[in-house]
């Protein structure tokens, strides 16, 4: 069985700059890491292979040429191989255009029974690409998977973490999953994995390698546009209230209650 794990290289949070003109992130000069939540998707895929449920785990990433490092890190963790999708034509893709290309790459690789995604990426924070890939491939998707109960002859039984509990769902394969942290702590790369990662060949695909329409790619293929970027008012003006006795405690509590009412919290 073959498992695809779409991963994204993201900037280490905290050191992010934006291009005010185009509204996209400036990635140069910022340390890039594998999206921490994608590591859980990789972990599940590798565990399923170890349990005999899969024999080929492929990491797929769309991004700039430097995202090849993300693929090598995935291989160091235990993936069998990886593919990088990289070309200027893909720049500025929103979640629709990203899902479109990743789905096309998965279709080209072929033979997948499972596509396992992280819950969301820590930069865009949308969580839309996993279900988007499923929709383009016309596959069922189970999001927020916290546990795999069983994998057998053409079906998978999983637990899905929702607001008020846990659903137990049985999905026909092939299917797309997005996983949450409860799936299990990601492993560190092994020495053997690192050696393999250094040597593995990472094919780089461009639009010419995929069955895609040019008009659906990149910024021009994206239905949405970022039109403005601004800093949220993070520097909060802390209103300090001194409490030294019963009366000032009462006063401070009244102020907090009034504040909560202003904020529609009470």
């Amino acid at each position, binding site marked *: 069985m073959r498992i695809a794990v779409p991963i994204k290289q993201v900037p280490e949070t905290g050191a992010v700059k934006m291009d005010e003109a185009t509204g996209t992130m400036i990635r140069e000069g910022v340390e890039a890491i594998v999206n921490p939540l994608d590591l859980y998707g990789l972990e599940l895929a590798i565990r399923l292979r170890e349990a005999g449920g899969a024999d080929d785990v492929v990491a797929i990433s769309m991004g700039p040429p430097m995202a090849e490092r993300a693929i090598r890190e995935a291989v160091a963790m235990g993936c069998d191989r990886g593919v990088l999708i990289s070309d200027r034509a893909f720049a500025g893709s929103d979640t629709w255009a990203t899902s479109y290309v990743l789905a096309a790459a998965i279709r080209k690789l072929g033979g997948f029974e499972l596509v396992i995604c992280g819950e969301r990426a820590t930069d865009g924070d949308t969580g839309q690409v996993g*279900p988007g890939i499923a929709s383009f491939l016309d596959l*069922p998707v189970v999001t927020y998977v916290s546990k795999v109960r069983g994998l057998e002859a053409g079906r998978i039984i999983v637990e899905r*973490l929702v607001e008020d509990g*846990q*659903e*137990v769902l049985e999905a*026909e394969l092939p299917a797309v999953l997005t996983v949450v942290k409860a799936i299990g702590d990601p492993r560190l790369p092994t020495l053997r994995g690192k050696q393999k990662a250094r040597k593995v060949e990472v094919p780089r695909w461009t639009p010419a390698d995929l069955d895609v329409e040019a008009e659906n790619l990149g910024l021009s293929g994206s239905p*949405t546009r970022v039109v403005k970027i601004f800093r949220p008012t993070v520097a909060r003006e802390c209103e300090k209230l001194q409490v030294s006795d019963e009366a000032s405690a009462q006063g*401070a509590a009244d102020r*907090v209650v009034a504040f909560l009412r202003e904020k529609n919290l009470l």
Partner: protein
Amino acid sequence: MTDTDEYRGVWTIAETAGGRVARVGFELLARGRLLAEKRGTELTAVVMGSGVGEEDLAELIQRGADVVLLVEAAELEHFLVEPFAACLAGLIRRHKPEIVIAGATTSGRTLMPYVAVKVRAGLTADCTGLDIDAETGGLLQTRPAIGGNIMATIKTPTARPQMATVRPRSTRPPERDAGRKGKIVREEPPAKLTSRVRRVEFIPAADVHTLGEADIVVSAGRGIKKSDNLPLVYKLAEALDAAVGASRDVVDRGWLSYPHQVGLSGKTVSPRLYVACGISGAIQHLAGMQTAEAIVAINSDPDAQIFRVADIGIVGDLFEVLPVLTEKIRQRKIDKG
């Protein structure tokens, strides 16, 4: 290219569970009403479910919907992406709404991207602000990104509909107006509602206030001095209907268990309100909670780092402050009924 003028009307998705409309479905009417009025168009609440109560449908109208678009089928009793997406995509193709808004819930965040792909719509997740561009009449969607470091305003120039998810509890449902008129329109679901996913069972959470999803978090820090003092924090949490969090100090000392830990080495939370009780505010803790919409901190040290990210900081003895605050909040809730 889509003819954007062909698309009219604002839709909000009213999620159902067990035949009842969920609270978020009423909340979204507040957002939808504002947009519909600015666009001079109708607000439609879309209900997909099974055996949905008439009273809840009427309440959607009383709280702001002009039309309730209802699709019922046995296959829609619980959320499964394929039948729900087939219904919603079908409704969108038939009626061509300009805007579709859903709650950023586990089902909304699954359904919307699945449908957006099918109908080639623009979709923006977790919007905190929605408005109409005075110039173009298009939807302006504002949302935080990169861990709340940046806010982005996004629009959808030509694709329609313009779709967005909004976090639950980020608005209040509009007031109920018993005299408000509207119509309930029943539509047939697509002929074949198939799903390759089957719901086997459901295990309700023992504690619904799981920290990550809680709207309000009350956290204890080393300032509580010993575990015997935890009830002070629990009582405040109970009054606010909040989940209880903790700093790493508190967890390391064994006063609360690891699932309560907030911070880089614990959980990242982004509730509507975070109350820090006796927490000094180490960077590693701040990183796990500073995107909360509102922050109230209580600490005896006027220079505590936690005050840097707080909206209101009470400088004082938490053993003096917490009981008074808890009582006032309780009283306020009783007065409100």
